[in-house]
Structures are given as C-alpha cells and as structure tokens.
C-alpha cells in the first residue's frame, strides 16, 4: 500500500508540474472586471453586497481556527488551490484565454462563507500586483467569484453528494458549476452597468455571456476534474479529517 501512496503523490506533483508547463502564463489579461470599468454607483453597490459575506467568512474562519486548530492546514490548502488555479490562464475554444477559480474545493470542505475571504484574498493579490481585476471592481469580482461561486458549489455538492449519494460526481459538478456561475454573474454585472442601446440589458447580457461564459465552459470542466484530483489525494492521506468535517457539518 505504501508504494501506491508514494506513487500517487508523485503523480500529483508531476501532474501539477505538467499543468504549469502547459499553461505558462501568457501576456495579456484574463478575467474579472477591470479597474475603473464599472460606474461608481455600481462599484459601491457590489462592494456593499460583498462585505457582509466577507464578515461571515471571517467569523467562520475564526471559529474553525479556534475550535479545530488542526484544520488550519486544510484551510491553507483550500486557499492555495484557489491561488494556483487563478494563476493559470488556460486557452479555450473561443480563441481567448481565461482562468479557473478554484473556489469549489474550499466550499465543499468548509461551507460557502470561508471562500468569501480566501477568494477575495486571491483577487486582492491580483488587483494590487498584476493590474488584473481592480480595487474599485473588487466588490463586484469578489461577489461573483468568492460569494456566488462558492454558494453554488456548496448547494450542488449537498444536493448531488448528499441527496443522491454520488460523491465524486458531486465534487466535479460543484467545482465546474461554481466556475461557470462566477462568470455568468460577471456577465450580469456588466450587462446591468452597460445596457445595450438597442435591446437593453438582455442584449448586453447575451453579448458578455458570449465572451465570458462560453470561454469558460472547457475551463469549468478542467476545474471540476482538478478538484476531484485534489480531493482524491486528500482522501488518500487525510481521510480522517475529511470524515470529521463531514460529521461537523451534519451537526452544525
């Protein structure tokens, strides 16, 4: 059994390496609404919509760290996973590139609110250092990637894994749909701020969704597969903590 474990961890490391090699960051921007590209009113609106969830997330993380300090490392993994996946700009069928979000894993492990904090940290890093996304648009981007995405992931996982008992499929769908819904929300946000002269918000949404959501389809599938991969590995080495987390969620 020991041999198999060694092999599968080599596999994971090799896999991540291959993944990086295939997806060396290209110049040019990827996703998120860019700095200054939302009118002031909308920027404030989305900030206000996002902040309550951020505080929920802080409370949730504080509780986890205080009551179960042994989960700190797993929290780190959830954040790191979002960090890695957000850095990979993957080519897509539309001829443009975008990156996955990586928020599904943390939501499945710890519930949706934790990712509001971890996901927005990723966005902050990118806004400050990479001119990718922005501070004025951080509220909107965090709302789509760190609030709606994780909530969708959590709901889908609970439904498919909990009600239907299909755990792996649940994880895959949760991560993939979190990714897709993130960019559908981005499209809605842009459509609300920039309704088309003819056809209004709906026409505008169709246009943005054509750019964002379509590009995101293969990436959502990739994200689902990678999340299952990391889950498999966590289960192999740390099945105990995963079981405890599930029990906790049943109580809570």
């Amino acid at each position, binding site marked *: 059994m020991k041999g198999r474990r060694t092999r599968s961890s080599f596999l994971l490391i090799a896999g*991540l390496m291959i993944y990086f090699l295939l997806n060396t960051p290209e110049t040019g921007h990827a996703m998120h609404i860019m700095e200054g590209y939302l009118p002031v009113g909308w920027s404030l609106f989305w900030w206000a919509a996002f902040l309550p969830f951020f505080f929920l997330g802080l409370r949730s993380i504080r509780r986890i760290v205080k009551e179960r300090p042994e989960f700190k490392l797993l929290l780190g993994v959830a954040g790191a996973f979002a960090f890695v996946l957000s850095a990979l700009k993957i080519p897509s069928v539309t001829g443009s590139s975008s990156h996955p979000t990586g928020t599904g894993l943390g939501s499945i492990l710890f519930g949706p609110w934790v990712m509001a904090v971890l996901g927005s940290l990723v966005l902050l890093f990118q806004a400050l250092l*990479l001119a990718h996304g922005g501070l004025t648009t951080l509220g909107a981007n965090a709302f789509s990637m760190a609030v709606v995405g994780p909530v969708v992931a959590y709901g889908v996982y609970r439904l498919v894994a909990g009600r239907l008992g299909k755990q792996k499929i649940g994880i895959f769908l949760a991560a993939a749909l979190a990714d897709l819904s993130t960019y559908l929300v981005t499209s809605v946000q842009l459509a609300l701020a*920039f309704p088309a002269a003819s056809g209004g918000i709906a026409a505008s949404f169709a246009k943005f969704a054509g750019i964002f959501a379509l590009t995101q389809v293969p990436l959502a599938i990739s994200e689902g597969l990678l999340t299952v991969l990391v889950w498999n590995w966590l289960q192999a080495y740390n099945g105990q903590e995963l079981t405890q987390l599930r029990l906790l969620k049943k109580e809570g």
Partner: protein
Amino acid sequence: MKRWTNWVLLLLVAVLAVVPLVLVKDSEFAGADGAAEEAITEMAPDYEPWFQPLLEPPGGETESLLFALQAALGAGVIGYAIGVYRGRLQNGKE
C-alpha cells in the same frame, strides 16, 4: 482502479487545454476581459474608466513573473500539506 483514475483526470485536463490550441488557428489566446473591454466600448462609446490600477506590471515579462509567483506560492503550500499529511499517516495517527 484508483491507481489510474488520477492519471485519466490529468490527461483529460491536458487534452482540454491543448485541443483549443490545435483547433483554433491564428489566435493569440488573449484574455477574455480584453474582449469584454471592446464590448463595453462598443455599447458605451463615451465611457471612460474612472480609476487606474495603482501598480501595473511594466510588461509581459514582469507580469508572467508575478503570475508564476502566484502559482508557485499556491503549489508550495499544497506540496507542504501533502508532506505533512503523508508523514502523519506513515508515523501512525497523531
């Protein structure tokens, strides 16, 4: 069974990333938000971005450095956690 499932997952991810590169010719695979920017300009030609990024990487090289840094930080944490969990498992529980 379990031994090769992860390989298959990885292979699928790799295929998903490579297929567009092969199929879609003469594209630079620029970011989708660039396309969104054009769409905004089309719908609201008078719109002026009202805020500029505080820091902007001076060029593609610096930008790719920062992206690589971001990926490396994340991968480092994940790798560290792998090591901790494996060590814990091999030394028996606790």
